[in-house]
């Protein structure tokens, strides 16, 4: 087992080495998280009245606001990570191998953040956890979030991350360091025997085969949370599920791309994420973003032809009313992102910087699009003629959400200092003939 090490450091990829840059990152992330916690504490002490959230109808507010927008966004993002990891394994796309762990980590982190955001949105968070365990009803679309997303996808992603990392862990466990205990624990007795490799391949294959439909089902239930609402024009419809998935794929890929680019820079000399990875990500993103834009344009046309009714009111709010700037921003950004991708695809030249710009545009468009899914139907699409209202998040909500992002970044940042972010080896691509492929 040839473990790549350097003479001056014990562990690869900067694991265990706390650089100034990383400490600065840690400080910033902790500060943002801290402020987020303060904002949430303030909210808990005074009630959600300190947010911009208000009851729908007579109060003219939105009862689900930025928190739920971010729940939808984070859960959407989580899709891409584990899907990429799974797809790269099932279809043996070797080029994506370097970012497989990033993808898994992104899934774990964004799911964790997304599920925390669900709890944060509850009026009674403690009671929420307790009563869901005691009384959760399968009829409610939340049951899916609770069991399939929180239980299924999250645990599978964790299992994925864990099992996929055992071989690296076993190698690291041989290197003396303060983290040796952790690597030993993770390795959990892995010896890299042929049976073990074989078993690992089997497990990973079945997990991969299992997780993709699970994700599709689980995340569709997220769409169903909105889609089954007969009483809310703009929500009810069979497209909510697919719409959710497509946007999830686009935003997830965009975030994976951004994260990969950041890690690429952060790793410096350790970097093993080559341009080929971004090419692949770019292609996937191109497909996903095209589909997302397609859905948006279909929606736009539907809005343009909305009959004088609740849908008309909603359409007016989106096209030229309160939410027009967000609507056109999301379409503009998605178009911009897509244009950048197409131009690169056409030229067959994939530049990481441009890809990152496109990804930021697409990811932001996705947040905006989630916002437009969640909010206007509450303020402008009541079936009874309540006067239209408005909602825009205030500092408390923005702070809490910033804290959530910081928490996610912290998870990834901490992970990077505890474990190699790029797989050093990957049992999956080892062929039965025993040819050992290693990084480098």
């Amino acid at each position, binding site marked *: 087992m040839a473990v790549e090490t350097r003479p001056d450091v014990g562990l690869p990829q900067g694991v265990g080495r706390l650089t100034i840059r990383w400490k600065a990152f840690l400080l910033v992330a902790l500060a943002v998280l801290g402020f987020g916690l303060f904002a949430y504490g303030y909210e808990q002490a005074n009630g*959600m*009245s300190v947010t911009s959230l208000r009851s729908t109808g*007579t109060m003219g507010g939105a009862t689900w606001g930025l928190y739920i927008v971010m729940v939808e966004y984070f859960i959407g993002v989580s899709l891409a990570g584990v899907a990429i990891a799974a797809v790269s394994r099932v279809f043996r796309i070797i080029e994506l191998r370097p970012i497989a762990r990033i993808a898994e980590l992104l899934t774990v982190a964004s799911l964790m953040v997304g599920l925390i955001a669900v709890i944060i949105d509850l009026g*009674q968070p403690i009671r*929420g956890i307790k009563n869901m365990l005691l009384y959760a*009803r399968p009829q409610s679309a939340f049951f899916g979030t609770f069991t399939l997303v929180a239980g299924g996808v999250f645990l599978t992603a964790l299992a994925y991350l864990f099992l996929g990392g055992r071989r690296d862990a076993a190698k690291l466990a041989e290197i003396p360091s303060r983290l040796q205990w952790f690597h030993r624990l993770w390795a959990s007795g892995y010896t890299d025997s042929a049976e073990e490799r074989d078993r690992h391949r089997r497990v990973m294959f079945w997990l991969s085969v299992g997780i993709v439909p699970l994700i599709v089902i689980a995340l569709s239930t997220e769409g169903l949370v909105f889609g089954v609402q007969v*009483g809310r024009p703009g929500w009810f419809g069979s497209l909510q599920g697919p719409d959710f998935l497509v946007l999830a794929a686009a935003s997830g890929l965009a975030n994976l791309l951004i994260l990969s680019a950041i890690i690429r820079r952060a790793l410096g000399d350790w970097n093993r994420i080559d341009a080929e990875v971004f090419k692949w990500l770019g292609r996937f993103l191109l497909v996903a973003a095209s589909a997302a834009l397609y859905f948006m344009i279909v929606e736009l046309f539907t809005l343009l032809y909305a009959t004088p009714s609740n849908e008309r009111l909603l359409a007016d709010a989106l096209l030229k009313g309160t939410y027009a700037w967000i609507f056109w921003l999301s379409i503009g950004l998605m178009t911009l992102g897509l244009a950048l991708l197409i131009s690169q695809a056409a030229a067959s030249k994939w530049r990481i910087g441009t890809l990152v710009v496109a990804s930021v545009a697409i990811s932001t468009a996705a947040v905006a699009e989630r916002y437009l899914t969640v909010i206007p139907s509450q303020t402008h699409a009541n*079936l*009874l003629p309540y006067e239209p209202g408005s909602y825009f998040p205030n500092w408390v909500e923005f702070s809490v959400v910033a804290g959530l992002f910081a928490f996610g970044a912290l998870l990834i940042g901490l992970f990077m200092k505890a474990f190699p972010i790029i797989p050093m080896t990957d049992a999956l691509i080892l062929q039965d003939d025993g040819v050992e492929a290693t990084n480098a």
Partner: protein
Amino acid sequence: MTKYSMAVDLDRCQGCRACMTACTIENNTVQSNHWMYVFRFEEGTFPETEMSFLPRPCQHCDNAPCVKVCPVGSRFKREDGLVLTDADRCIGCRYCELACPYGVNYFNWQKPEKGQYDVVDWKDDDLEAVTGGLIPPYRNPDLDELYGEEQRHTAGGGHAKGVIEKCTFCVHRVEKGLEPACADTCPTNALVFGDIDDPESPISAYLKDRSPWQLLDEAGTKPNVYYIGGKPPNKELKEIERPKATV
């Protein structure tokens, strides 16, 4: 079987909102949480203007979307028709609020005592000498009781921060044999309450020779509130004299 229902006679409704105030006092709900709400509408352009009123209690649907979506069974339908909320079970996800096409659910955005019209200082020392510090001073002890065979905490509002509440048809009064507070106070008896399965009940008698319609029939919620006279609301209606929302 018993099935509690309400008839709303729009040919009698004056839009006075006495039902709203009666409800607030009876159920100790916090400000801006209008379990009973009365729309006032204007339609058309001068001089072809028309006006109308529309009281909107919870419709206590047979096919209640709120019951379906409640993740923890806090919202439930009783065999006697009442759709109720268990204030001790609710986790505050507000899914019911969004599922309901009528907009009847209200959240306790803050600590209830803060929302009790706190522009007035109910903690005033001299007042406390009279009320024992209860907030609101007209606090109704019936609301702390458990009701029905299910023995759950369903009556009244303003129980805790972060839970949903809505019209209960005054379950605590109904179980005493009294009408809901709104129907009791209605100056023109535009609200008629009773057991629609009992042909002798006031509501059955009232509906007998009239042709009621239901709110948002097309939503398939099968409401238990019947409207008489007037016409179903449409989007051409302009709501006027909307109460001030203060949270």
